[in-house]
């Protein structure tokens, strides 16, 4: 398998993730309702539908592919999760400017840059039990690079392990911050979405929580 990915690969992966998010919308809403306003599934459904409706093929340019996804989100959603994802995508676009293919070996550093910008935008420190903790684990897990399958599997395992590691921890961000103990025993819906998204990227079965 190739040790690089292109804008076309990003487009194909985004479509697989979007299909999974459409299918899992009710589950995400249910998870979000336990500690939030219960609309995360609807938000991801709306954005995913827009991604799937965009039939124009993605070009090779990696930077443009990231920016195209950011622009789809910018048009269709205003949720905090969307804003965080958009921030990460814009950073990835800036950091891959001019690249027609990107080494998987560079993915960890790129994701770490994206994570930093997402933390700055959301003001969510690591350890707060958010999607950013899952992404941080993925950054660490893919440091070794490899091909698409190896990197994807490492990322998926990291996402699953992070879910398990945080399940019994209190939530420190969002509505549950007022009663952090209520988050104990619950999966963070953003972390679950990350796991479902990575599973879709590598055609694996998502875990069910």
């Amino acid at each position: 398998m190739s040790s690089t990915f292109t804008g076309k690969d990003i487009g194909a992966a985004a479509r697989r993730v979007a299909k999974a998010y459409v299918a899992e919308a009710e589950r995400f809403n249910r998870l979000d309702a336990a500690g939030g306003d219960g609309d995360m599934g609807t938000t991801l459904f709306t954005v995913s539908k827009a991604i799937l409706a965009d039939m124009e093929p993605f070009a090779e340019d990696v930077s443009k592919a990231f920016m195209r996804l950011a622009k789809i989100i910018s048009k269709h959603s205003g949720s905090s999760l969307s804003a965080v994802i958009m921030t990460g995508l814009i950073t990835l676009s800036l950091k891959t400017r001019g690249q027609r293919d990107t080494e998987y070996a560079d993915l960890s550093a790129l994701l770490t840059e994206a994570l930093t910008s997402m933390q700055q935008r959301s003001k969510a420190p690591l350890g707060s039990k958010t999607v950013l903790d899952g992404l941080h684990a993925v950054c660490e897990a893919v440091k070794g690079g490899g091909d698409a399958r190896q990197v994807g599997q490492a990322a998926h395992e990291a996402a699953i392990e992070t879910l398990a590691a945080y399940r019994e921890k209190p939530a420190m961000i969002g509505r549950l911050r007022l009663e952090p103990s209520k988050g104990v025993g619950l999966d963070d819906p953003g972390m679950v979405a990350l796991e479902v998204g990575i599973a879709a990227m590598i055609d694996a079965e998502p875990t069910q929580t």
Partner: protein
Amino acid sequence: MKKLINNPDYYVDEALEGMRLAHPRGYTVSGSNGRVIERATRKSEGKVGIVSGGGFGHLPLFAGYVGEGLLDSCAVGHVFAGPSFDDVSESLKAADFGGGVLSVIGNYGGDTMVFGMANDMLAAEGTDCAVVTVADDVASAPRESAETRRGVAGLILAFKIAGAAAEKGMNLQGVKAVTERAMTGCRSIGVALSGCTVPQAGTPTFVLDENSIEMGMGIHGEKGLWRGALKPADEIASEMVERLMADLEPPKGARLAVLVNSLGATPLDELYILYRKVSQLLNAAGLEIAYSLVGHYATSMEMAGASLSVMTVDDELLDLLNAPVNCPLWRA
């Protein structure tokens, strides 16, 4: 679901179209998604533009308060869901008259992030921008973490102050400072008597038993302080006043602006019954009500209940509150 609608998917767009048709001299609808409301009246060159935005379902709050002396533009989201980045960016640009743009928004994660990003982008293009985040709901967080509180009906007073200050010709820093000063002395609390239904969901966001109320509930049905049996209006008003005064701690003799607001289904009659007791309690505490609003200002569709907001005022803030407004949905 029993609502006067055609299709839940078109709830927001059809309502906005109705607003524009009903008030052609008040509102215009623009933006690539048709989700930007602008003042139909002429704006002065060099004036600070005042912008807000938020989820729909709270009218008159947000889009309804676009008008002279209030907002210049507003980004409109879906029901109870914030506007998209594009809608916010276009709203900011619509309010750029050369004097800078001030966003006055509620303290909700999505709105603060999306407005933050859009402001950063506009600033990068050379426009002076600033944001005032309103966090007045005392039930949503303790005083030690007041900066994390939600923004509710205090937004109305913030819009009035910022809009009037901009019309007076204050610069961006001045408008921001006076609005922030006003909000430093503003507190709100709500009480819900029944839930509401987001059209696309089709089922109530929460259910309260026939004789139950929830003190401190947010305008999207966020959990409040306690749920219990319905009490007489005077007892409810007393608890609301007590909680707000304990948090605000106004000095004896302080002047206050008071807003008694319906969450949607509660009629003016009941609001005045609440106001009666609020007024008695504040006067008894040696406080002067210098400005009052009673009515439907920040609603949650058909939710029954009310909110009480108080804000300490001085001569400058009173002048701004009493400044003229030309907006179809403003009721002073």
